[in-house]
């Protein structure tokens, strides 16, 4: 079997996952297409290095391509924001308010709130909730320790719950006016 054929069978079927991740990280269809195309060609060149499952392997390549793109085009996004366990623990309230009424969760509102999350939190949330990857796989893709995956995920959910609640309250005030 040719390399191209093996690639088409093992890697190309995961193009939706690749695009979904790139779309959430770049927040733009057009840029996501460019980044995924570059990442796929890179994946093809490094296809020999594939061991184990193709999807997390491909997503790691896509993720790195996205970060290179963001560093070039929106450097403020990667540079900004406190990171590391200490910073996250320091700002996390002990009794975190993940609370919200999920039934009230409006689709558009939720998508906007996820898109507004800082990059490093958005990334783990998408990999966990939309790609259903394990902490171990996410750690490998994002190139951070598992402990950092856990704290970022907790932080991502907390931030998301807070912003959804703020939006919900604001829209309720709007309708009461």
């Amino acid at each position, binding site marked *: 079997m040719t390399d*191209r054929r093996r690639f088409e069978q093992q890697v190309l079927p995961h193009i939706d996952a690749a695009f979904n991740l790139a779309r959430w990280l770049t927040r733009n269809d057009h840029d996501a297409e460019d980044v995924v195309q570059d990442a796929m060609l890179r994946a093809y060149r490094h296809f020999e290095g594939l061991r184990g499952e193709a999807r997390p392997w491909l997503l790691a390549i896509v993720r790195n391509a996205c970060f290179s793109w963001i560093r070039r085009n929106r450097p403020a996004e990667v540079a900004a924001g406190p990171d590391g366990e200490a910073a996250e623990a320091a700002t996390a309230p002990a009794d975190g308010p*993940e609370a919200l009424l999920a039934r009230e969760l409006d689709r558009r509102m939720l998508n906007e709130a996820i898109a507004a999350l800082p990059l490093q939190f958005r990334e783990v949330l998408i990999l966990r*909730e939309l790609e259903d990857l394990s902490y171990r796989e996410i750690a490998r893709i994002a190139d951070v320790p598992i402990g950092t995956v856990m704290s970022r995920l907790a932080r991502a*959910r907390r931030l998301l*719950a807070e912003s959804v609640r703020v939006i919900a309250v604001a829209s309720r005030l709007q309708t009461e006016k």
Partner: protein
Amino acid sequence: MKPEEAARLLHAYVDRELDAAKSLELEAQLAADPALRERFERLRELSAGIREKADYHAAPSSLAARLSAALPGAASIAPRRATRWILPAAAAALAAALAVGIALVRPGDEDALLREMVASHVRSTLGNRLIDVASSDQHTVKPWLSARLPFSPPVADFSPEGFELAGARLDYVGGRPVAVLVYKRRQHLIDAFIWPGSGPRDGAYSRDGFNVERSSAEGMRICLVSDLNRNELSDLARLLIARR
């Protein structure tokens, strides 16, 4: 377990990443602490809400075409229309079957059922036995199924909505005969497993690139299995339920 540690481990528990010993410890704490229990429920709702409602951005078909042109070497997938989608689908199916087999987190009837349905989807895409009765006409498919099953499943073509009925087959899942409607959307195949009964757990799940959408309506269980993205899969689920 200290309260701070319990709060910290809630996320891992919701994500099914906690080992058995810690899970038991945390469950004891949950039973004893209503406030913790409340946080757990909220967290689980949030996670389920994201899975259900966040957009899943499937790759536009133009991207696959661009890639095909950009990759070195000749495209080796058979150019015949009918088989073009089978190869990638089958490869993903095989990978998913292996992953499901190896990485099953929680044993149990529901997971076993899920595994059986994904395996059935895989087998049908690998072999030629996709479809026992090939027809987009519900008036052909429905009587064919009803004649062979102890129940009459809902059958409908949703071509106007972009889900073309390709046909149906019979299968044996969870110790009972089931109807499987086969739908096509773009390059994707969707199996809709249908049988009488109700289920304790509705919702969307995913296993290595495969999405499973479970729902029930008026005494019928409907489980969709496909590599199609979640949002479109739930669109089909809604159509099927509305039709029922």
